């Protein structure tokens, strides 16, 4: 064909494809990038960006701009950011959404706008239950899940008397409630400490006096580092079995070092999980960031992949994105093993038990069981979504 026809065809082709692709995709990523939980936020961002990079900088096949926002773990700041992302930046989706309190603070605006939101670090019981929203998902967990798994594990191991400890806020209370839901032995005592309390010497002395068979704690971030170190200094490491959730994990292990040896934790993910997707993920993460990914990084990595698949299914139609993401949940390959979204958009997944052991001069985690498989949360029945 002659040159003019060639040009015309090329132009027509370009026009045709551009009307399919439409505008560039924008995704807002919000996490606590400063303050005591900044490690968690950083891990999540890194996990998310690794996935985006592996997808060639594209989500749903489109070149994507990621807007990185720091909510400083403050619900008010999180609200403003969510408003900005929805009203000013007109994002296609929001990922991250920090901790439960920040997520709950932003929920009204998210629900009102219908923008797809994927939480990568929370699954508060209201959102799993009566306040479930069709456009709000979690690729992390429902908050009680890991604690329930730990409770079941302790029960299965035949531990008779357990001492419980957590910080005095909603998540702390939920964790201990989740543990007790599956653990049927004797609860020696339940102690709630101040949020971000640095010194546990008084509580550890009480703990020693009570002489339980094991202690179960929930101390995320800096609190966990303090607690475990102080337990070790009191000579309890190795003598009193430590069961925990979100306390000894990928982000705190480098700081804890040897003091964490012997600790047992439950989570939906650990870098030591032996699945093909995970081996590739861990290798890529370690190569790029020179550290081992934590469960927070994994949740964010999975969120990127789920969103990518969801966007492809929606084919550029924002109204179809929520349904697309939901369907994608069952189809994409998560690094943690089997995964799907439940009726309430909370994960239905395995929860594993991990032990921290000394190996070759370092401490590593290894999987020692799967207390709960394909576990759905206990709030799904309250959710009115179809």
């Amino acid at each position: 064909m002659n040159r003019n026809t060639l040009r015309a065809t090329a132009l027509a082709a370009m026009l045709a494809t551009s009307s399919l692709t439409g505008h560039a995709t924008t995704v807002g990523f919000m996490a606590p990038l400063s303050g005591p939980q900044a490690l968690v936020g950083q891990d999540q961002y890194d996990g998310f960006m690794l996935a985006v990079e592996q997808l060639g900088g594209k989500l749903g096949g489109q070149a994507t701009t990621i807007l990185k926002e720091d909510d400083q773990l403050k619900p008010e700041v999180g609200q403003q950011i969510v408003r900005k992302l929805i009203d000013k930046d007109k994002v296609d989706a929001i990922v991250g959404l920090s901790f439960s309190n920040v997520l709950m603070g932003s929920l009204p605006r998210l629900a009102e706008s219908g923008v797809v939101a994927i939480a990568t670090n929370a699954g508060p019981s209201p959102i799993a239950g009566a306040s479930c929203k069709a456009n709000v998902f979690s690729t992390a967990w429902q908050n009680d899940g890991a604690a329930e798994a730990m409770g079941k594990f302790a029960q299965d191991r035949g531990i008779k008397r357990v001492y419980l400890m957590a910080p005095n806020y909603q998540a702390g209370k939920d964790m201990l409630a989740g543990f007790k839901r599956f653990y049927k032995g004797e609860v020696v005592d339940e102690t709630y400490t101040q949020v971000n309390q640095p010194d546990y010497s008084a509580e550890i002395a009480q703990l020693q006096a009570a002489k339980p068979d094991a202690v179960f704690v929930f101390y995320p971030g800096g609190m966990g580092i303090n607690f475990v170190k102080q337990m070790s200094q009191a000579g309890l490491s190795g003598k009193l079995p430590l069961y925990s959730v979100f306390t000894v994990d990928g982000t705190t292990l480098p700081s804890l070092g040897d003091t964490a040896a012997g600790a047992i934790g439950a989570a939906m993910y650990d870098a030591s999980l032996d699945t093909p997707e995970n081996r590739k993920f861990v290798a890529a993460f370690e190569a790029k960031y020179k550290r081992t990914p934590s469960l927070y990084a994994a949740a964010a990595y999975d969120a990127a992949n789920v969103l990518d698949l969801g966007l492809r299914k929606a084919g550029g139609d924002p109204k179809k994105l929520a349904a697309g993401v939901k369907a994608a949940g069952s189809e994409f390959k998560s690094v943690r093993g089997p995964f799907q979204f439940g009726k309430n958009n909370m994960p239905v997944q395995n929860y594993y038990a991990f032990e921290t052991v000394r190996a070759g001069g370092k401490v590593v985690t290894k999987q020692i069981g799967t207390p709960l498989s394909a576990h759905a949360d206990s709030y799904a029945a309250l959710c009115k979504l179809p």
Partner: protein
Amino acid sequence: MSASLLFVQLLNGLQYGVLLFLLAAGLTLVFGIMSFVNLAHGSLYMVGAYAAALAYAASGSFALAVLAAMGAALAVGLLLEVAIVSRLYRRDHLDHVLATFGLVMLFNELVRLVWGPQPLFVQVPEVLAGTVQLFGFNYPSYRFAIIAVGLLVAIGSYWLINKTRVGMLIRAGAQNPQLVGALGVNIGLLNAMLFGVGAMLAGLAGAMAGPLLSVQSGMGEPVLITTLVVIVIGGIGSVNGALYAALIVGVVDTLGRVLLPLLMRQVAERSVADAAGPALASMLVYLLMALVLALRPQGLFPARRG
């Protein structure tokens, strides 16, 4: 609660009080003599903790780490004094609050910028890593060490304040700063020295606290607020007051945290007690301060004023 447990908790309270004293001693002098509200004292504590963590990781010697912490805090403190603080002595407290508030923001962000948000891991030195058997309890040797250091500093500061010429100038300055200046003493140098010593003590506290608590951006503020409470209770300007008040606050806080929830369970239903107990315990120290201020505004052990 058994007697031996109570004793152990008393020790815990003592240790916490000693750590507070290290911070309060320097701060109360700055407050009392220069009448300067220094909210950045917590940042100096953080500087000490970071310096100790880095020096310890580099050299493996805890003693060196402590010295590095004190040196670093001294250097930063003197820099602040010369550049900013000395210009603000004549202004009123509002300016002090503003300037040091800005400094706190700056230090926290700077630390995060340079060393990242990951807390630094400081090991307890080998020689102090064991425990001591006390009435059937294992009490960490390291905490004993903290108590020892604190008591040494208390004795040292007593000697300095009461038995030396410099101490005499400090006491005089606490009672009547203008007159001391009028007597020909280089008040500028004295102020700088005082600020520096306060900073050094804060650095020492940071170094000692490192192995116990996570060393991270923003670690200074919670401790700072309790330190301020100690100073107000003890009496602004009085180092003796700071010591007694620090010990009182340490013991009250620690015992409150363990006894109040137990007490509440006697009088209220379990779930209410579990919620209210820790909250009341956190408020206890502030209630104590409010009580002291309401009844004896100058503090429990004020520096004697002429």
